[in-house]
């Protein structure tokens, strides 16, 4: 049977300028109905701008937009919602003190007389939850539920408003591997129920796994398009299209480091640590050793004790039981949430760096500018004006500044927590090289991440953390075997290796032996 493909969204010569900067330049492509369409590109390539135009948050300077063949001009998100378009933003738009249900119905309340009909609403929501297997308690407050449940709340918001075209802006950036799999299953259900999904992401593996078609944006322009109906997308071509050049692989060459005697290698040691916070056990007999010249990767679903380990090592947390020894090592930290814990976004590069530097009490503008310029050059921070605040930099460039500050201190122990979260490909490569460089300089490195590929690529040793304790540790032999297998295994095979399977299971508390 011949099947005519219907167009859900058509972008026609869309151009959007901010000042003299082209965020989108003459972009034309269409999204077919009932498909998963991935939009790729580095930070600042114009993906989010384009989606905000589609969602009515921005207006294009020229060009037009068609929804199901109909010419459309939106004035606000409200118009877009009315046309069946829904968007899950990268930063959730949720009210922490409201329940899931209240968040969903806000603006579209079902009423009985003057009161909100909570019973009827609950019925409708629970039906949607079971249809799409969302597994969500609508009476819990947002502040009480996990990030992935919050994302489901956002999704349910769209379903409640009968959205047919669903836009997701980097939905998997905040999810663990297990949660990502669950999310993809939900996406599959959307597709089979006839919805159209537009998906912005950085992660190429995901693109091959779930997309029907990809469009790549670079510097505001559409540079590459490909179908992926047979799931055989060439990731090398794709990554080249994204960065516009051959991606330089991170230099993960590890130097052999000789230490005088074994004792000299000891850095940090945690023995049988128990920690309670607000009457909840966060660490339950945790053991961890960090050695100099070694990257110790910690993998696990967030909230299993990773942050508590950091707090103990950095001295923020002192009310624990067990033995913590530090033979006098200095410690540097690149935190997971750079906006909240890593930097002051209204300060310049120089001001952010000098905060932690031992310097004289008087700070001249010349000194600050010099520090900013030197850092930008050495750490490849791309900034148009050296005097601008960090808030005007992209996530990757902000992260490079924090990296510069922490690594320049030459501390004995380096802690990296989710170092490449929300960072584009080129910056990721740069940061990975820097982490290896720290190891080769003989630092003890603790690398906490939920990105398995990152951990496999960099670590000398990987420990899986689950429920406040280490569930298993894999040494250098197992990891190098794994890397060799990876080389033999065809890169387009979707099934994981035995080791990554094992780690994945440990992360959710299943022991295989």
């Amino acid at each position, binding site marked *: 049977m011949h099947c005519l493909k219907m167009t859900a969204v058509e972008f026609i010569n869309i151009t959007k300028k901010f000042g003299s900067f082209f965020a989108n330049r003459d972009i034309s492509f269409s999204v077919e109905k009932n498909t998963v369409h991935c939009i790729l590109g580095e930070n600042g390539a114009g993906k989010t701008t384009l989606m905000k135009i589609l969602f009515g948050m921005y207006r294009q300077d020229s060009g037009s937009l068609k929804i199901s063949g109909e010419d459309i001009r939106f004035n606000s*998100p409200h118009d877009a919602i009315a046309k069946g378009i829904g968007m899950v*933003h990268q930063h959730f738009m*949720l009210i*922490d003190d409201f329940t899931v249900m209240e968040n969903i119905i*806000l*603006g579209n*309340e079902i009423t009985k007389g003057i009161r909100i009909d909570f019973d009827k609403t609950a019925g409708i929501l629970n039906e949607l939850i079971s249809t799409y297997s969302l597994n969500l308690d609508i009476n819990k407050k947002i502040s009480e539920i996990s990030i992935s449940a919050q994302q489901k709340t956002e999704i349910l*918001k769209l379903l409640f408003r009968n959205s047919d075209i669903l836009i997701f802006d980097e939905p998997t950036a905040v999810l663990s591997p297990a949660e990502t799999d669950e999310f993809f299953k939900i996406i599959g259900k959307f597709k089979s129920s006839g919805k159209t999904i537009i998906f912005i992401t950085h992660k190429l593996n995901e693109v091959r796994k779930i997309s029907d078609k990809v469009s790549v944006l670079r510097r505001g322009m559409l540079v590459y398009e490909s179908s992926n109906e047979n799931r055989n997308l060439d990731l090398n071509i794709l990554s080249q299209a994204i960065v516009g050049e051959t991606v330089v692989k991170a230099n993960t060459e590890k130097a052999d480091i000789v230490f005088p005697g074994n004792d000299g290698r000891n850095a940090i040691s945690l023995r049988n640590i128990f920690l309670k916070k607000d009457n909840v056990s966060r660490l339950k007999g945790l053991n961890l050793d960090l050695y100099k010249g070694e990257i110790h990767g910690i993998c696990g679903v967030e909230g299993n004790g990773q942050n508590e380990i950091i707090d103990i090592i950095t001295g923020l947390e002192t009310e624990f039981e067990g033995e913590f020894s530090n033979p006098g090592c200095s410690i540097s930290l690149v935190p997971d949430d750079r906006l909240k814990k890593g930097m002051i976004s209204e300060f310049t590069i120089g001001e952010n760096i000098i905060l932690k530097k031992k310097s004289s009490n008087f700070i001249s503008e010349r000194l600050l500018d010099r520090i900013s310029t030197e850092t930008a050059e050495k750490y490849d921070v791309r900034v148009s004006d050296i005097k601008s605040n960090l808030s005007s930099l992209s996530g990757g460039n902000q992260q490079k500044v924090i990296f510069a500050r922490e690594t320049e201190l030459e501390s004995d122990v380096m802690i990296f927590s989710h170092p490449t979260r929300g960072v584009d490909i080129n910056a990721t490569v740069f940061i990975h090289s820097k982490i290896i460089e720290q190891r080769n300089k003989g630092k003890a490195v603790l690398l906490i991440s939920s990105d398995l590929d990152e951990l496999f690529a960099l670590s000398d040793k990987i420990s899986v953390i689950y429920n406040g304790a280490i569930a298993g540790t894999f040494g250098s032999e197992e990891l190098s075997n794994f890397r060799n297998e990876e080389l033999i295994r065809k890169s387009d095979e979707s099934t994981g290796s035995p080791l990554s399977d094992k780690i994945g299971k440990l992360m959710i508390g299943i022991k295989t032996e």
Partner: protein
Amino acid sequence: MELISSVISLTFLAQVLRLMTPYYLGASGANFSERGGVINIAIEGFMNLAAFSFVLFSILTGNVTAGFICAVLINLLFSLFFSYFTVKLKINQIVTGVGFNLLIAGLTKFLLVYIFNSSSNTERFEGIPDLEIFKGIPFAGTVLSDYMTIFCFALIFISGFVLFRTKYGLRLRSAGENPYAAESLGVNVRLYKLSGILISGFLSSLAGIWLASNQNSYSDGMIAGRGYIALAAMIIGKWKPVNIFFACLIFSAFEALEITLQISGTDFPTQLIQMLPYLITVLVLVGFIGKTKPPAADGVPY
């Protein structure tokens, strides 16, 4: 002994419930404003303004109903000004509130001298008559003789219902918690903030009217910080209508105690009792209630 027995009596309890009225009206009003994300410390000034204009227009027209209506309307007008500064121009809410309180204090003082030829108080007037239905019934007769006290009891349920069970309440609260999320769902945040401020203007006008009516005159400084105490009660009550009611009872109990002491003629310095509400506020916040959590975007201009 006499003092203790006079405190543990139905008369005293009736007094406490009656004196609760202006506190609860002010606190409920402030709560509507803060639930929408606007800190309204101008409650003190609003009460003052309403008390003065109620007396002024009651005397001028010879009709308390006309005085009542004028006082409410003038307060709504000032609430509109307050919204213009805080919501439209996004000026700091505390600074605006302090400005309004000082302005109104000066304005009433000026008009007091200008119109009534006195720097301290107006002439006496009749005030709002008592409700006669329950007259003669012990306890209930005293408590329910006042329209506004009865309204306060209803207000506990009304504000709880409006805030947590209606579309309006949900949207008002969303404006105070996360206006960006609210706007993304099509909620007109500024309109809801404005409505919260208008409700606070209306309820605080009732509080001012009650005070003037019970004193049968207006005198300079007669609000005596009750607006601020109402704000404290709102905080101690954690922005919840029922809790705020009980917090108001604590404060009105101290006021009743102060009056009882004055009448009994003991040597106990009443100034110390007058101090107690403020001391209690600090102690309660530090010791018993702990950290209270205001609406997330309370005080943040949008």
